[in-house]
């Protein structure tokens, strides 16, 4: 019985692993094909089944005038927007989370939990609900199709995540830390910046990772709120997905765009194994 169980366990884990890896392997294989080897039916192994070429990859780095796709600009746009919005969200979210964790707020029936819920509940908003008014709002203030406009919108997406993770984190940081600092003659701001903040770096890293993930993978807002001036990576890649799809460059572009966040998976796993993530994610 235990042997059968162990066998089943490994069998399921390996089955799921194959399912997880399958689209990546397919994309890697496809990225080295050309028109003939794609339209000839599904093939998998280079040299054996088809003649590999680097066309799909080289076209990514050529400017549009030479028939290339040039994903470098969109790549940096994506990085800039994601990081700026994440940074602002973490900064503001951490401050707010600290206030919600340490002080009591009361205004009529509104209490701490309600304010926390207000922050987090912004995630319920379907992007499409916000997209129409944001479209008109940003065009009124002249930020449609600009990086600044996108950053504003992404703050709304990311701050709830930062507040959610940081409130839980601060709730587990013992109150004695700040109380000792206050008794030692710090004012509340000094206590926060000199004592509490250095102790919160693990929490902030976790919150930061999640903000980066959810900023990087957003497509819809970038799709609606930008056109030609500013293009983010996902929009650029999906735009390739037209009637005659160049599967090879599409696969190469997809791989290039998901690669950086795979590193995040390793970092998250490290936090998980060291036990730093456990409280931060409940």
């Amino acid at each position, binding site marked *: 019985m235990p042997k059968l169980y162990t066998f089943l366990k490994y069998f399921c884990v390996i089955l799921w692993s194959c399912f997880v890896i399958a689209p990546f392997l397919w994309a890697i294989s496809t990225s080295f094909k050309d028109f003939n080897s794609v339209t000839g039916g599904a093939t998998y192994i280079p040299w054996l089944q088809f003649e590999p070429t680097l066309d799909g990859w080289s076209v990514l780095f050529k400017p549009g005038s030479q028939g290339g796709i040039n994903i470098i600009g969109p790549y940096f746009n994506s990085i800039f927007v994601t990081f700026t919005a994440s940074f602002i969200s973490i900064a503001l979210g951490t401050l707010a989370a600290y206030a919600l964790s340490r002080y009591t707020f009361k205004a009529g029936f509104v209490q701490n939990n309600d304010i926390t819920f207000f922050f987090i509940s912004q995630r319920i908003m379907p992007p499409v609900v916000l*997209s129409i008014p944001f479209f008109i709002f940003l065009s009124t203030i002249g930020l449609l199709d600009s990086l600044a406009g996108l950053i504003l919108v992404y703050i*709304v997406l990311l701050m709830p995540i930062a507040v959610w993770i940081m409130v839980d984190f601060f709730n587990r940081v013992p109150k004695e830390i700040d109380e000792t600092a206050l008794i030692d003659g710090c004012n509340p701001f000094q206590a926060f910046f000199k004592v509490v903040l250095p102790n919160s770096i693990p929490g902030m890293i976790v919150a930061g990772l999640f903000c980066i993930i959810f900023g990087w993978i957003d497509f819809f807002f970038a799709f609606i709120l930008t056109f030609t001036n500013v293009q983010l990576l996902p929009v650029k890649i999906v735009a390739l997905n037209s009637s005659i799809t160049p599967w090879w460059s599409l696969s190469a572009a997809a791989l290039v765009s998901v690669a950086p966040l795979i590193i995040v998976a390793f970092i998250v796993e490290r936090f998980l194994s060291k036990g730093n993530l456990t409280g931060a994610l409940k």
Partner: protein
Amino acid sequence: MNFKHKFVFLLPGLIVLIGILIFPIIFTVRLSLSGWNSYNPGLDFVGIKNYIRLFTDDPRFWESFFRLSFLAITTVFLQYIIGFFLAHVVWKDIKFKRFFRVLFLIPMMTTPVIMTVIWRTFFHESLGPLNDFLSIFGVQPQWLSSPGLAKISIIVVEVWQWTSFMFLLLLAGLLSLPKEPFLAASIDGASPFKKFMYVTFPLMAPISIGAIIIRLIEASKIMDTVFVLTSGGPGTATETSSFYIFIKGLREFQMGYAATMSFTYLIIMIISLTIIAKVLTKVLMKE
């Protein structure tokens, strides 16, 4: 402590969030009472005409809403079962534990819309690897152009993408459980199955509820997958609420009516998620 400080901490975030959101929300409500469309752009006032149309004369909206509920509940249910199983397996020592943990985390790090583009080639009827494999058995299902299979394709992609998030939340929960109850159960000689049913699962109940609610919220926003994989098709077979609102608002430019649907949809979502949270708390906490 001086009460002024707490506001200095709280207000920057709160003001920025409200500052960015206040206009869109008020504007959506106002827009929903107007007849803004491509022939007649502008904020005229038509009263609750749009709401009457939505509630009496638009079965397509309600169909898309029930389809969304079906897709969201099915995918989250599958993600929970698979995610819990995987988390439970790599929680304790198995070989290559950390390798599997990283591997299972990877899908949530990838951009859904980009992976869906890859999945679309994967499901391709004549050139994709899936049908190439299935041709061994002599079948060539039309994954994306028959109504039933298109739904299944979307479920497969959603489960691939987001089980890893469920896995992460549940594994983080498992790792934070206290050790004593398990020790006590071992001393009492409980079998692994009983240990799971009477110790692990009840201890995980609050974390499970949290994870399911978070996933339901995110799943209710399914949009990217549908947009790329099937564009709501064939016909309206995979059209979800978000996608229908998108078509009406940003393709046909019936902004007023789209705002009406948005606002109604938001209210329904908030009410139903609150109810689901309450029910789940009751069911899972009792066991």
